């Protein structure tokens, strides 16, 4: 028998270390040392209910175990074989105790559709992919369905673009299919540029064939025999695995001429990005593939009308494609049974930031942020307080406590002031300054703006400058109005989708954390202490001995005080050189994010 004790950060901070020691002691005492092993495991992810203890082989999952419960578990469960019911998980819906974790809501929260083969097969071996049904959907489509029927399946499934905007995939295929041309293209957008997002890369690295197969299916539907994958050059491993996969698919005749003995031929070539976030925008991506500067152009015309080399082009992102083969094999109804009314299926997120279980997750649409953060993600790191979750990367926004029960789908995230984006999720805790976070994203946008349109090129620069003034304590009240007006105008007038959404990080923090902005502007205070310029050297009256060492070393004579009396620093004069703190032998001088007014009434 095994006793697994969670040794994750969350559980450890609620004494899981002591719990495993007590188990060992108790087992020793009961003479069961050789029969029962105590194992410390990694985080179970269910930190909400920690500390977690799991008994194998019967898979009993105990929650919120306290050190004093260890004896009871051994006596009752290990020796007598009776489960300690009060420590089992109580299903909030059914009000029944659940002992096997597999039947618990939490573990059902993830469902891997797009990631179905990631971590399961050797991505460089096509046989393993075939063993997991790769290319069956393509075979089925080519031998049983017309393009129209296939498009109909995709349409009925409710699949929408996973790159962020959520355009219905089937409809896109249909439109591109209907535009007549001698040549058409299928493009896979694998230019995942969001800082802190790596969903697409994981699919390409873990299951490249799912994408290749889906592109061929798309090609069959729209009447294209050429596919292009635009992949970031910063993803060397994904590039390598794609090359291997394309090569192997060719050897099996699953790509190339007359696939499955039909008239359908399809080939896929790779094109590399070169470090430009804007190339995630489809018109910019197309220009980049043509060897040009990756600048977007106005839509219409849409790529479905005039895309790569002026030909109708269907652009979908990696995750969207990865869903397609499963939909064909399992049916539109199966897919549309997952998710919410308007957003079907699952979505992959890269969960990162101040969270215990950083990683790649895939959940059905409609899962709430709370479930993701506290159940799957295992809660906030180091037991800190949750402050916000940033979704959608630089185009998205920061959502707060009040949005935690929002079911995730395209519409509700947009309504809440953020967006689905490609799937980055960054969790922020109480130590994060929301103005600085907005500034971080604006810094990214300023660096990545292509420069073609004035609102994005200059407007975001000005936004950044205002945010910088705010974090440096140099802002004036009008700056807040300017921020808001600029955000609205940029959103209204920028040329491409990226420009139009670029003010979102500012707008969403302005809406949800206006008090932090106001503190910075009016009180020159950063509550999380992140803004260096808003930290102050303050003398602790209790600790100060009045030795005068600080006064002597201060280069601007900002320190005053009588001998043997607590000294005081005039913040209006202080240049924050730090010499006084270095000099003080009594640790009486500290950096603080606020200070008491130095005005003394005489």
């Amino acid at each position: 028998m095994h006793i697994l004790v969670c040794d994750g950060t969350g559980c450890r901070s609620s004494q899981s270390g002591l719990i495993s020691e007590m188990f060992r002691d108790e087992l020793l005492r009961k003479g069961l040392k050789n029969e029962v092993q105590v194992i410390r495991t990694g985080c179970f992810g269910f930190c909400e209910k920690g500390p977690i203890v799991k008994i194998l082989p019967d898979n009993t999952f105990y929650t919120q175990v306290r050190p004093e419960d260890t004896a009871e578990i051994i006596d009752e469960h290990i020796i007598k074989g009776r489960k300690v019911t009060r420590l089992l998980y109580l299903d909030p819906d059914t009000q029944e105790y659940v002992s096997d974790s597999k039947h618990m809501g939490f573990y059902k929260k993830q469902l891997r559709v797009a990631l179905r083969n990631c971590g399961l097969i050797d991505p460089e071996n096509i046989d393993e992919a075939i063993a997991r049904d790769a290319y069956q959907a393509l075979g089925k489509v080519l031998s049983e369905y017309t393009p129209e029927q296939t498009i109909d399946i995709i349409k009925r499934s409710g699949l929408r673009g996973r790159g962020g905007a959520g355009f219905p995939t089937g409809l896109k295929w249909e439109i591109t299919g209907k535009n007549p041309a001698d040549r058409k293209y299928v493009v896979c957008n694998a230019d995942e540029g969001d800082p802190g997002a790596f969903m697409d890369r994981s699919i390409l690295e873990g299951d490249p064939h799912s994408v290749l197969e889906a592109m061929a299916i798309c090609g069959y539907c729209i009447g294209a025999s050429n596919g292009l994958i635009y992949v970031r050059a910063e993803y060397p491993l994904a590039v390598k695995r794609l090359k291997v996969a394309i090569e192997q698919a060719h050897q099996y005749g699953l790509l190339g001429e007359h696939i499955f003995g039909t008239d359908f031929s399809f080939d896929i070539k790779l094109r590399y990005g070169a470090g430009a976030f804007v190339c995630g925008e489809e018109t910019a991506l197309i220009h980049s593939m043509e060897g040009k500067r990756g600048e977007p152009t106005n839509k219409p015309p849409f790529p479905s009308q005039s895309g790569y080399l002026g030909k109708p082009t269907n652009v979908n992102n990696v995750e969207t494609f990865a869903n397609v083969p499963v939909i064909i094999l399992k049916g539109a109804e199966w897919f549309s049974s997952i998710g919410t009314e308007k957003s079907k299926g699952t979505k992959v997120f890269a969960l990162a930031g101040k969270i215990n279980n950083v990683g790649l997750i895939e959940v059905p649409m409609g899962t709430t942020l709370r479930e993701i953060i506290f159940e799957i993600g295992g809660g906030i790191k180091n037991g800190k307080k949750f402050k916000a979750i940033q979704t959608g990367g630089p185009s998205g926004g920061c959502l707060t406590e009040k949005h935690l029960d929002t079911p995730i789908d395209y519409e509700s995230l947009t309504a809440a002031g953020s967006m689905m984006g490609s799937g980055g999720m960054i969790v922020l805790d109480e130590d994060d300054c929301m103005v600085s976070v907005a500034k971080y994203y604006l810094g990214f946008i300023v660096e990545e703006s292509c420069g073609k349109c004035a609102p994005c090129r200059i407007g975001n620069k000005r936004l950044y400058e205002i945010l910088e003034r705010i974090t440096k304590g140099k802002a004036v009240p009008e700056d807040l109005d300017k921020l808001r007006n600029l955000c609205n105008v940029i959103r209204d007038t920028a040329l491409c989708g990226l420009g139009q959404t670029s003010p979102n990080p500012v707008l969403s923090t302005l809406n949800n954390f206006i008090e932090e902005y106001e503190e910075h502007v009016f009180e020159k205070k950063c509550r999380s202490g992140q803004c260096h310029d808003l930290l102050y050297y303050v003398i602790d009256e209790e600790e100060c001995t009045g030795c005068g060492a600080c006064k002597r070393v201060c280069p601007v004579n900002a320190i005053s005080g009588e001998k043997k009396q607590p000294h005081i620093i005039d913040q209006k004069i202080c240049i924050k050189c730090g010499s006084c703190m270095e000099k003080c032998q009594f640790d009486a001088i500290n950096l603080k994010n606020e200070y008491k007014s130095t005005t003394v009434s005489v």
Partner: protein
Amino acid sequence: MEMIKLTIDNKKIEVAEGTTILKAARQFGIDIPTLCHFELGDMGIENKPGGCRICVVEIEGRRNLAPSCITEVQEGMVVNTHNIRVINARRTVLELIISDHPFDCLVCAKSGQCELQHLATQLGIREIPYKGEQSTYRKDTSPSIIRDIDKCILCRRCEMMCNQVQTVGALSAINRGFMSVVAPAFEMNLEDSPCTYCGQCVSVCPTGALTEVDHTNDIIRALSDPSKTVIVQTAPAVRAALGEEFGMEPGTLVTGKLVAALRRLGFDYVFDTDFSADLTIMEEGTEFLNRIKRHMAGDTSVRLPILTSCCPGWVNFFEHNFPDLLDVPSTAKSPQQMFGAIAKTYFADKIGVNRNDLVVVSIMPCLAKKYECQRNEFKVNGNPDVDYSISTRELAAFIKLANIDFLDLPDEDFDDPLGESSGAGVIFGNTGGVIEAACRTAYELYTGKKLEKIEFEELRGLEGIRSATIDFDGLPLNIGIANGLGNARKLLDEVRAGTSNYHAIEIMACPGGCIGGGGQPYHHGNSEILRRRAAAIYTEDERKTIRKSHENPSIIRLYSEFLGEPGSKKSHCLLHTHYFPKSNEVTIHR
């Protein structure tokens, strides 16, 4: 064509399918301001990157504002061009653009002609609420063009002109985001780039980012130096455009006033480049006939077609791009340089002035002429044949500076002996004019017959590439004409490939020829202005009594007194030149 019904600013209108909102609005008298948008529609030149976002309008039911210059109308569309949301957005965008623009309007070469300035006035910008860092770059001065790209607003018109229209490829958008700007490769000097100085970038630049090098001050200095004799020549296209700068209707001929103004500015002699245009025809025409005759006699070493060489932008272009074809163009100098060479020899000797004390000024519709007159091969012991070349625009500013009431000036005549010209010299200003002038002379010299109809209508027009076959009394000659360097490239590629069946090709670097030159008054995208200038040139030709170069008495006298005959040794020394490969391509031996 299908008609689309829509509503703009509560007006119900109907326009053809495919019309942009901007055009539809303008058709019905609604003015939507624009900035980056630029169109010479019928000449196939258009620039609508949709980048400045000034022309945004609200389309009901759409989330964002839409750029009216590229958004096509749709059935039932309801458009608001000036509601509060639009006005606020438009003003904010303009404030942003201005926040990254130097505030030196008082000393800017473009002041008063600046589209950004006009727009700021129009939208009532009174302060810049969004002050911040400005993007700054190195200022670059070439012989013809100054690039002060701190003033660049990234409308990309110059890039479009330089690449799509002229295929010169000297300029490209570079960098990214806030630091993006239009510049030559590696931000090198324009002088080191394949720039031809055609000046088309300058002629479309909405701000002072691209301007000509101004030589007015040098000329004022020369005029005020009593030891100098200062003479001036004016190119044909100047007289058809200068009036625009004084509020006259485009296409007004101001030859007489132009002469009078130059005289009042203090020039000692006012001459005409048309005179040396006639001279060019004599030399180039002779060379052409020679090549034809040798060709017909079976001489395979002779290169055909012959290419005209009077356009310095074009000369720079083929030196850069077709260094392998340097023996194809005529060796005749341009009229400006022929004038300079004759002025500083024949004329200087005539009036007994040392060439070093003779200052030759040219008034040109062109910026490449500034570079041309500085070329080493056009200097004798360091003294240039033409000292200064100023543009039509600079002359207008000069006249205003001198407080000359241009409109009130009497018509005056050019001085002798370098002021007399034929109608053939005048039409040099239009695309097709040089070759028409050449045909008038070559025909008569070749056939010995008198032309029945002087006008070769088949050689006229504004299309980029034209061709015609002229019957030289039983000898059909294939003539090609290109205006705009992109069109020239097409014909030159054929020559290079050996598939060209032309005997002679006229090439002008600027769209429309010299009337559309880089130094002409700004047309701000109105191609009607070009058409009127062209018509004015042909009118001037018609008014002339002498319309063939070889009949110009001053030309006849020049040959009899001085040069001998066309193509003589003296003519060659003074009036012909060589070309130099300026390949921007790799010249390493492989």
